[in-house]
């Protein structure tokens, strides 16, 4: 176990170093000058003097290697520097933004798991029956609808047409809990629908595969009730693959809720990242990518641990 932990920590550290270096190098290939951009919004002409002095102030005139070294040393101390644009601490911004993206993903995940696992189980236990046919057909539709299409549709229907929910935006839960929940609803459902389709498919396939196993027959032969057979000998085994896939999805979603955050004006991490790229705010871009990658590695690790808890045949090495 200790060896496992050491091994993982080491390889995670290595991966992060590679990711950090790659990001750092890529950013210098990206054309565009943050100083000039900041001073020339809306077609305004900025004077070269002003740009030059802002570049100096932003620290962009230091040698590249010095900047790289500084970035690495500070990142080790969880210090990602300050934004080139407004000097806000990148770490602080991530700390306020990340929980929102996670909240969005988790809310979607909870919705998806609460509906997807029972529906997938039910469909998997009775494949080819009416419920399975309907649910699978609905699911095929869901999986084929990109999130931005669903989002556009939702805003039109629920906000502009029916006026049931706000069109987007964000209010802190502590300022106005009810408004917060209302604003969370549409984006969470949009994320949830995507996750639902994955969880449903995975659960159904997994249950379908598990229920044909010999041990299920053994369990029935023991005289267990159908409920117990399903819960202990089908679902329990089927959850492993589902969790793996969900875990992977969580990691992917961390960086790809961009479109959903964009459409609903949800101020999460992805939106921050996109703005930072557009503004060429290097410290912010680097910080966000490092944090997201670290989380991704962490989630993978947690999935691995969870899987090994669910399936004793898996040895952590």
């Amino acid at each position, binding site marked *: 176990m200790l060896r496992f932990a050491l091994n993982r920590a080491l390889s995670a550290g290595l*991966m992060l170093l*590679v*990711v950090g270096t790659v990001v750092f190098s*890529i950013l210098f290939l*990206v*054309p565009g000058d943050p100083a000039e951009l900041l001073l020339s919004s809306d077609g305004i002409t900025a004077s070269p003097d002003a740009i030059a002095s802002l570049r100096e102030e932003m620290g962009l005139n230091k040698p590249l290697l010095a900047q790289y070294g500084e970035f690495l040393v500070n990142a080790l101390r969880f210090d990602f520097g300050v934004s080139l644009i407004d000097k806000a601490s990148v770490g602080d911004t991530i700390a306020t933004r990340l929980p929102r993206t996670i909240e969005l993903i988790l809310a979607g995940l909870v919705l998806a798991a609460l509906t997807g696992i029972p529906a997938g189980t039910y469909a998997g*236990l*009775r*494949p*080819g*029956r009416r419920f399975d046919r309907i649910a699978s057909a609905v699911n*095929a*539709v869901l*999986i*084929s*609808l*990109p*999130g*931005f*299409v669903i989002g*556009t549709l939702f805003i*039109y229907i629920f906000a*502009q047409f029916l006026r049931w929910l706000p069109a987007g935006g964000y209010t802190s839960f502590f300022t106005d809990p009810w408004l917060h929940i209302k604003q969370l609803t549409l984006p969470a459902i949009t994320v949830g629908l995507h996750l639902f389709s994955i969880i449903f498919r995975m659960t159904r*396939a997994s249950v*379908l595969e598990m*229920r*044909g*196993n*010999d*041990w299920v*027959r*053994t*369990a*029935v*032969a*023991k*005289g*267990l*009730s159908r409920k117990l057979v399903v819960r*202990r*000998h089908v679902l*329990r*085994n089927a959850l*492993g693959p589902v969790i793996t896939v969900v875990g992977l999805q969580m990691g992917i979603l961390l*960086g*790809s809720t*961009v*479109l959903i955050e*964009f459409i609903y004006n949800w101020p999460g991490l*992805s939106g921050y990242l*996109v703005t930072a*790229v557009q503004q060429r705010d290097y410290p912010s871009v680097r910080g966000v*990518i490092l944090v*997201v*990658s670290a989380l*991704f*590695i962490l989630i993978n690790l947690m999935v691995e641990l969870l899987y090994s808890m669910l*399936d*004793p*045949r898996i040895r952590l090495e």
Partner: protein
Amino acid sequence: MKSKRFSIPGRMVLPTVLLTLFVGTMFIAPLIFTFDATKIAVSERLAGPSWAHPLGQDGFGRDRLARVLYGGQVSLTVAFVASLIALAIGTFVGLIGAYFRGPFEFIAMRVSDVVLYFPPILLALLVVTIFGPGVTTLVAVLALLFFPSFSRIAYSETMRVSVLDFVEASRALGTAPSRIVARTVLPNIMGPILVQFSLTAAACITVESGLSFLGLGVVPPAPSWGQMIRSARTYMEQDPFGIFVPCAALFLAIYAINLFVDRLRDVLDPKGQLEGKDAVSATKDGAGTPELGEGNVAELRALTLTLDRGADLPPVDLVKDVSMALRANQNTALVGESGSGKSLTALALMGLLPSGIQPTSGQIAVGRKAGTPVDLASLAPHAAEQVRGNDIAMIFQEPMTSLNPVLRIGFQMTEALQAHSDIDRAEAREKSIAALQSVGIPEAASRFDAYPHELSGGMRQRVMIAMALLAEPKVLIADEPTTALDVTIQAEIMDLLRDLRSSHGSGLSMLFISHNLGIVADIADWVVVMYSGEVVEEGPTDQILRDPHHPYTRALLESMPSAHEDLHSAKGDRLDTIKGTPPLPHLRPSGCSSRDRCPMAQPVCATIHPDLYRATSGTRAARCLFAPEAPEHLIQKEAV
């Protein structure tokens, strides 16, 4: 149920047609009709459908049909090319990594990991920002995003394949690695990779549309669906049709591909696809209190098991008119080839029939430890649960898979006990450990907390036996319990089973199922031979073995391996001495079912379907016109 051979292509027809139609429309329609997807006519902007423009015109007055079709070409081409590149790179990386291992493995897999650790949309954003939007960039981005999934699959599949016998063999023969990889490994991993390819194509379309939606994809004036959605979104309220068209096209494309993948996967890997069949069917709800003959603990009476083949095909009787009595304290052997219906008969006795197979006539009478006997053929599901495992128990052929791998042995044992009595955990544990000891498991207490994979096959079969006997059933069904085990272990398990009758006090009746007559000689008092769903001969073991009356029984005896060690070999329950295989249930020949394979068959065998003729003494019975038990007049009358 359609038979699998026909259903598979059938399942592929719809998605293939859909996909072909869709792709065809995108690429062929513009060749036939003259469309111009970029010609603007601002004065006709947002015009509705007309003859000249069947889907109307967009915000610049461009023909929407042309744009959807042309956009489809762009989207599909980008998706296809990108997926192909991702496949090539990913498969190469994965193959190299898995086959050559060492530093190759490390580099290949870490490169893939680094890409995976980048948030995908962000990676796309960065690449597009560096190289500028455009079709080439898009293809590069998508290929970059998706090659790791190919390399992972190729890697794990290659790992799986490269330890297989034939790969090891070609390696031993000194074949060049590149040749092995290309000729042997690659064809064997193509299935999953093909599935991944289709999945990737669908994902590519989604990502492409997302990027174009953000303005980072295909460069105007060339259309793409995402871009069309982006521009139609501004007119959404004035012109909802404008956003509907590209959304529908996008949806249909992904839907068609996904459908294709799903079906393809079913075809390539049918194990998850049981065609709507439950592993265990619920027993039929009904009523009836059967009576058991004197000294019998269970009886099958004229049992017929029928497979429902759906609306189009007539149902088929898999087991016909089988009667059998299990006497207390007696071991009965049920013998036959695979397909003879012996296992189905045994499962019917447990109420464990696969779904789709139902008892259509006859009774399955099982005596209870307390109370009146029940008819499992018509018992309510809940009531059947109380009989199974309690009054009648079963052990299976595959000890390796008969125990749930993720649950501790102790848990699986105690849950069997707790299903039938209000027993507390400590007591259940004590009883279970005692049961483990009684089947000869050393250190039973620690084995109680072990997981199945920590035990050998023989040990697991002992666990199964202990578990089956926990509730002290009157009947134990053993379905080829030693077939999957090593030879030496087989003997031990047989000894254990033989001893059970004496150690298991309350009069255990065992139904022992085997394809091998020899193996039952040691253990059974009574033998029932089945062929093609029917009992063809039965009688006391010693008599049957000494003097079989049915030609089929004789053939079975002759096919017995001479050495005892080979008795229970797992080389398949096929008979070497009799050519051919038993007939499929719906293709049984007229007259005697076994006549095709019978060396003694006469013309008369084709006209008369023999009954199970019982000897006047009442002990033996055989289903053959030429058997001593058969009435003489039958043959004479027909033979003349």
